[in-house]
């Protein structure tokens, strides 16, 4: 089972400095993505979905935690170790205990994390590619489609122009465009076509994992279906693994095998998509599901939205919650009292 895991995210933390304090955009998120699956990440805007995606692809230097790709550590943060050292030092001061051996050990771990983060294999990292949300803003308007798509290859050191061209043509055809499009500029394309260019740019590197950050939310309805179908095709043909970030739950349900629900930087529920939609456990997931509009007027007129008020539902004064397994493959962010309740709910 474990060798099936393509990407493993452990206690990922991404904090941003904001004025005096820190914004905990992603706070202790762990999950794995298995090879060949589509992992959906949903949540409202500002909950840290995009930040998670960007941290994995090393667009940000992560604050804490580890990211393993194919078993190798590609990104690591040092905040956890630093905090521990601080605690130990304080303990020494207060109680006079000697922790120097532990501190030494932690320092070594920091060094190794820093080394791994800095010296991650570039070739490996290029096997993770990203598709961005806005197809207009993510393509350079001064580059032709050929230049945009081939840029990654050239940076990798490929010099043979013929070979590059051939590769560009091949991916263009794969995403449903034609050779002639290579010489044009992004503004000459429609929104759907632009998103196809973005996809072509990401698949030319022969990636194993694609992080698709809301690839369809800026598109028209009819074009959305085209892009989803294209991603589905590519996934089959190229044996891709996809991490699909979106806020449109119907699409995520349709497209993903497993889904993680995020709320304010935390992963609150993680399960197979069928399981999640049939038996949502966390109150936030329930509220999110109750908000999905469906193309059915009679259902819509009856639909009651469940409002999620964290301060009323949870009582975390005694015990802090963690992500815990309620039943195989179904994780919920809760403390032990809640866990019992959820388990009872599952049994019923």
């Amino acid at each position, binding site marked *: 089972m474990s060798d099936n895991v393509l990407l493993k995210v452990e206690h990922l933390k991404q904090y941003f400095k904001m004025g005096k304090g820190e914004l905990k955009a992603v706070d202790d998120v762990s999950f794995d993505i298995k090879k060949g699956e589509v992992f959906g990440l949903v949540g409202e805007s500002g909950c840290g979905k995009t930040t998670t995606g960007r941290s994995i692809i090393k667009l940000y230097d992560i604050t804490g935690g580890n990211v393993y790709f194919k078993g190798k550590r590609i990104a690591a943060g040092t905040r956890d170790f630093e905090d521990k050292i601080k605690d130990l030092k304080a303990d020494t001061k207060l109680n006079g205990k000697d922790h120097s051996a532990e501190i030494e050990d932690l320092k070594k771990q920091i060094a190794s994390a820093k080394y791994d983060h800095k010296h991650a294999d570039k070739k490996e990292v290029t096997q993770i590619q990203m598709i961005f949300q806005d197809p207009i803003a993510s393509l350079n308007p001064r580059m032709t489609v050929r230049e945009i798509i081939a840029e990654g290859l050239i940076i990798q050191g490929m010099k043979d122009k013929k070979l590059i061209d051939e590769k560009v043509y091949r991916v263009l055809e794969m995403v449903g465009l034609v050779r002639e499009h290579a010489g044009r500029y992004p503004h000459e394309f429609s929104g759907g076509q632009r998103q196809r260019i973005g996809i072509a740019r990401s698949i030319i590197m022969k990636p194993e994992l694609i992080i698709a950050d809301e690839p369809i939310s800026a598109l028209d*309805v*009819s*074009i959305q279906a085209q892009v*989803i*179908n294209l991603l589905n095709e590519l996934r089959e043909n190229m044996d891709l693994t996809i991490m699909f970030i979106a*806020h449109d739950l*119907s699409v995520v349900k349709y497209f993903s095998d497993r889904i993680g629900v995020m709320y304010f930087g935390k992963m609150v529920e993680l399960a197979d998509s069928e399981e999640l939609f049939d038996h949502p456990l966390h109150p936030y997931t329930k509220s999110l599901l109750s908000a999905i*509009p469906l193309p059915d007027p009679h259902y819509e007129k009856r639909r009651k939205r469940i409002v999620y008020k964290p301060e009323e539902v949870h009582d975390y004064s005694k015990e802090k919650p963690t992500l815990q397994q309620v039943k195989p493959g179904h994780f919920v962010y809760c403390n032990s009292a809640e866990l019992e309740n959820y388990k009872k709910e599952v049994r019923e």
Partner: protein
Amino acid sequence: MERKIDVRNLRVSFRTNNGTVKAVRGINLQLNKGETLAVVGESGSGKSVTARAMLGILAPNSIVESGEILYDGKDLLKMSEEEFHDYRGNRISMIFQDPMSSLNPIMKIGKQLTEAMILNGKANQRTAKKEFNTRFKLLKDAMLKAAEENKSLSAETIQSKMEEFKKISDKGIELTRAYYKALNSAKECANELAMYITDIKKDEPKNIKDELKETGAKAKQVFHAYVISKENTTYEKKLQNYLTKITSYNNIEQADALISSMKELREELEPFASTVEPDFLAMAYYQSKKPAARVTGVDINKLNKEMRDFFEKDFLKDFTSLVAEGIRYSDRRASEAKKETTKKLKDSIQVYEKKTLDQKECEETAAELTKLVENSVDRLALKKDNLAYVFDSSLHSAIKTYFEGIPKNQKEEQRFAADTEKYNKAVAKGKDIGKPIPALIVDLELAHENMILTVKRLYEAYDKEISGSAKKDYKVLAQEMIEHLYIQAHKIVHKITKGMAKYHAIELMQEVGIPEARKRYKQYPFEFSGGMRQRIVIAIALAANPDILICDEPTTALDVTIQSQILELINRLKVERQLSIIFITHDLGVVANMADRIAVMYAGKIVEYGTVDEIFYEPAHPYTWALLSSMPDLDTKEKLEAIPGTPPNMIHPPKGDAFAARNKYAMQIDFEEEPPLFKITPTHFAATWLLHPNAPKVKPPKIVTDRIERMKKLEVADSE
């Protein structure tokens, strides 16, 4: 059912460098009172353009080719900009897509909410003043001229009567001003007191004390002003009580005592807010004739009637007949001029109808015609003759466009020909022309037609008017004129103060569900989340109490939970304020919740039109099927039926059914002839040849039929 908006055969196109984009191509829509009409379609299908046409905010390069949008008996498309100020925001209001870009980032929310209210008030004052003065002068001139003709009237009486009227209205304005000043202060005080009563316990004493003192000062002003007579000692006592309570208010325990004194003061002030307004014009006359008469302390309705009767009998009766004479004269003169102009227009249209036009002749005739038309306009009439007012500019621009499109010498001719050929070639290949085509390639035929039409439309309108002028009742017109002047005079005074605007704004913010509105009032847009920002936009749209709300994709930029909150809010406001809503979106899921009726648009046309149940449970048009099948729902497993290709280029709209090229059910006739709107039920229409009796019977795609089956099953299960 009362019809609110009636769009008939609307056609709008945009002039761009690449040619004319035909954005809306003949649509018919009806919006009834209290219903939500959803307009669904892809981007570029013309749904936003339709909405913008209703508000008169089309881009400057747009051309309204034909059609009418009827609202309240008026055509919004032919309305002048000044008239539109009355409608935009006040009657019809709009919520835009992106709450981030529709708010000003460097202005506090409160200011943005009150800005329009205050500015609108100021602008109204200014225009009203101008309108009153010009109208008054025109009327006077017309009356004097009428006196010259008609020996039974003497110029002196007219002069003196007009002067008297002016004096009365001036006096009326003075009275109104004094009245409103006092009334507003009273209202503001009452409102503020009501507001502070709820806040006083939450806030620190030192925070709120200054504001309370200000209210006290305002309350003093009320006391000194017109409304409250000086004998009213209870008010004075209560005010004094309130002021002492404020100065001694230092800790929260004293709050209750302060609140009770505030309540007392408020009770004293509140009745002013609900009093009937006195009839100021009549009052002014009454006072000038009977200066000794007491006007305070009497029941206001009775007083109004008494004063009005006196005013009617003593002054207005004679004055109305004089005004009627003036209007009759002005109208007759205009009719005569119109007859002459019509004749001339009909004669000179052959100048423009020639195959080859002479520029000099065209321009000279145009100048001559404009002079005549200008002369024929009845400037005194309250209903403005839009066609005549714009005749000059539209004819001249038509002539200019036409002649600039003709090459002047051989060299230019060659260049034009080459450019045109290049352009045509590119178009024939179906290529999107990257660079702008030469500006001088204009459709000469269209320009020529425009020229002829401008002239033709005017004389047709004149013909109609002349035949109708015999039936005019000048007495009624005169009454309308006096009423109009009175309204203008009233508007000069009517003012919205900052305090009133603030109170309204906070009330609105509470209505759209913003917690702690008083605190939020002082914040900037960036301090609000997306959903809250959209609520502010909705509050601004509702500020002037419109009865039609146009929502242009109000939730597209928001995520699911916020989206459903906003939709709930709009639905609630619709019921509470009895709004009629036009809801524009591309998301059919959203529509199911909101709409009563749905119009599906594609390539500038309505392809299907029906109630919400009909569209979702019995869709008839292939495009509706495609839209429904291209979105997954929670039970979708099979491959999505994406609509192949992209929407057509509207510079060259395809022949026949615009959707044919992307439609797998398309038949030969779809590429040749445009389908008419077939009637399925009295409320359900669809424009597709599939509904023709000779068409083969086709079923909607499996994904759609499956879903409908499922939905029906669900319903049966539910009803059991």
